[in-house]
């Protein structure tokens, strides 16, 4: 399971921006955090790297989304390295 922290920038048109925010909220793998103006903070939980990349691409195609930036990435805890 991969987890990413993203900042999604919404467009200036309020209606399109609200529809975009609703679409992101409704999509399965996203958890919404606080919103700052035109920016949504989002956690994306995907099954693996490939799924994460596909959902990231999906975000970019949502009408009303200007761009998405990656702030944080976490890899699958099942792959945790044993220091000992």
């Amino acid at each position: 399971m991969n987890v990413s922290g993203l900042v999604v920038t919404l467009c200036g048109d309020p209606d399109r921006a609200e529809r975009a925010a609703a679409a992101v909220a409704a999509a399965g793998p996203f958890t919404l955090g606080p919103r700052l103006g035109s920016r949504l903070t989002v956690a994306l939980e995907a099954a693996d790297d490939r799924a994460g990349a596909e959902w990231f691409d999906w975000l970019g195609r949502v009408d009303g989304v200007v761009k998405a930036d990656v702030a944080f990435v976490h890899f699958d805890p099942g792959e945790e390295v044993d220091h000992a």
Partner: protein
Amino acid sequence: MPELNRREFVRSSALAAALALAQRQEAEGADVPPPRTELPVISGAKWHKAPCRFCGTGCHVQVAVKDKKVVAVAGDRQADVNKGMLCVKGYHVGQILYGKDRLTTPLLRKKGELVPIKWEEAIDLIAQRILKAPARFAFYGSGQWTVTEGYAVNKFMKAGLSNNNVEPNARLCMASAVTGYVSTFGVDEPYNCYDDLDHADVVILWGNNPAEMHPVLFSRLIDRRMRKEKVTLIDLCTRRTRTSEQADHVMVMQPQGDLAIANCIAYQLVHDGAYDKAFVEKHCNFRGDAKPRTLLGKPITFEEYKKALADYTPEKASKLSGLSVKELKLLGELFADRKKKILSLWCMGMNQHTQGTAINNLVHAVHLLSGHFGKPGDGPQSLTGQPSACGTVRETGTLCHALPGDLKVEDPEHRKKAEELWNVPAGRINDKIGHHTVLMWEKFCTPTDKGGDLDTVWVQVTNPGQSLPNLNKLFRAKKDLADKFLIVSDVYPTATTELADLVLPSSLWVEKRGVYGNSERRTQQWFEMVPPPGEARDDCWQTIAVAHRLLELKHPGMKDKDGHFLFRMTDDRKQEVEVWKWENYYGKVNVDERLYEEYRQFTKIKHKDVAPYSVLVNERGLRWPVVEDDGKWKETRYRFVEGHDPFVKKGTGLQFYHSVTKDDKALIWFRPWIAPPEMPDRDYPLWLDTGRVLEHWHTGTMTMRVPQLRRAMPRAYVEVSRDDASELGVRTGDLVKVQTRRGELTLPAWVDGRGKCPKGHLFIPFFDESLLCNLLTLEAHCPFSKQPDYKKCAARLSKVSPRRKE
């Protein structure tokens, strides 16, 4: 122990990181909204403030705690230092508490194996050992000690055992900055603060790599550029780094070239009549080396100074430094321009240097000579690597020659003052300087019958088995000496605990109360938030417990003049609280506060007044001196500057009130270029340089246990230039052997990797416990600061084998 909900923790961390980035992006817009300080809502969790556990920047974090576990970390948007930003290490700082192999019980080595024992036995063992030979005992601590941890050890050793063998690992990181400040201004620590980053027109980096080592501070410079401000960055380096990628001018110098560069700038200022004559006449005297050389040298005239600089024309300095004449002239012209504000920053490149004091003196000198001093954005500022090298080591005096409050053991007036404040009999403090770090470990690793006059060393909060130079000589030699006893208080097994005879499990970061002091004189406080695991206990408690056991064993030094225990603490009814018993340590009295307030009295002696504990509780740190004015506690952004520093006499403008020459003036030094003790030759034709990487904190004991950081940088490597690699037939990933006169190491090569070395230069980061680069380094040190030079020794490189196919 209940399972940590990893998913919830990670999701919360992801949202916190996104929030910080979103805030910054919003701030870049034309209409900047006021910062919002709300934190993510995590059901059942409470947020608390703390400074980050890692570097000397001193970022403030908010820590979310739920069910006695840290569940999230966010940058603190109310903090001046970082304004909500964190670096990649800071975002993961909460995870350092939860490595699988935390030490949880005292361990004693019996027949080669570490076996669990009780705390009572461990404390008694240490006390008996000290009692048997108190003069042969030494304490080795850290710039990661909290203020009270360091202060308690200093009091225990110097006021209790009359023993000055207390040293910190900060001897290895900022001792040259200390001697540089003391011999220039008469007192330690930067006069300025991080506000300079927001005002400088030109920033000169003297051998440091802030893009990786102080990334949050570096981002303040880059952010200004994103706001279309003109900030010229000059990277004076021995190899190109991530910092170089942002620099306007990258000037790759030869190792030790900095001495010639600084003197050349001074030469140009004087030769061209471009120095600030009025400033120099009003505020400075000139100083040069005495014979033999001493820290404070001797007075020289301006004419003598000018004559000494004659060997540093751009043409001559070019040969010594490796910079071109054009580059040297550019630097000279910059300093001659009074209209520009110039900030010089430095860290290990200048401090870990066999002429570390000298180069610190010289960088101060070019600023004083040119008048680039005393205004926001205009001055020299050293940066510290550790979170409390300033607050603990430099300010509480955990050095073999020092006392709290910048006092010195060799000064009878200083000893008298300290004895009064500690309420111990006159003569209790030993007047002889103890062993500095390199000497301490050399003595410990030398057989007793061959002059090894230390047989017990207690290490707290540091990892000398990985961080000391020339490890075979200064650490590993202990293995064959049966009568030497090593005590290590730590949180994880390390290269040091491998040779320990007694291992004590310690609390880490927010598992205890603490106070830290960062690079810009900012004292920061936090409370304990989560319990330590198993039987781990605070390092300060361990020190007090041993002191009390010594009291029970009738060591006279554990009593003060009134016959009371050195660490006596009473409650509101004046009843003694037995804080040496763990069950009482977080009980009726706040031990941290009591010791801090006792220490605070020392800080008033040399105008380094720190804020009261009760005030720090409500702040994101305050920069000393902090004085009360009209009912409010006010911090000081710029020392020695009228209008900022409350101790500066009105009308003086600038007053160096602890001046070496006792006339309120600073010293402009001349110190010559002197070759390093080991340079490349026919047998060892390459320079070896060592340092750090963004992802890991120092020896990696904490960060290598954070999976994300370990995955990002899993192993050490040796950076090799493309030219050297080509000559040897080496490609990235190939195994190579690096040899010096002290040892050898086989590790993978990285050709033109993250850092790009010039031909003849190698670089190895020191975070990897499985690849100890300090087997190779040299313990030669600055004659005044005693700080070793990790940046320059002679090495050779050979190919071992190509990497395996994936």
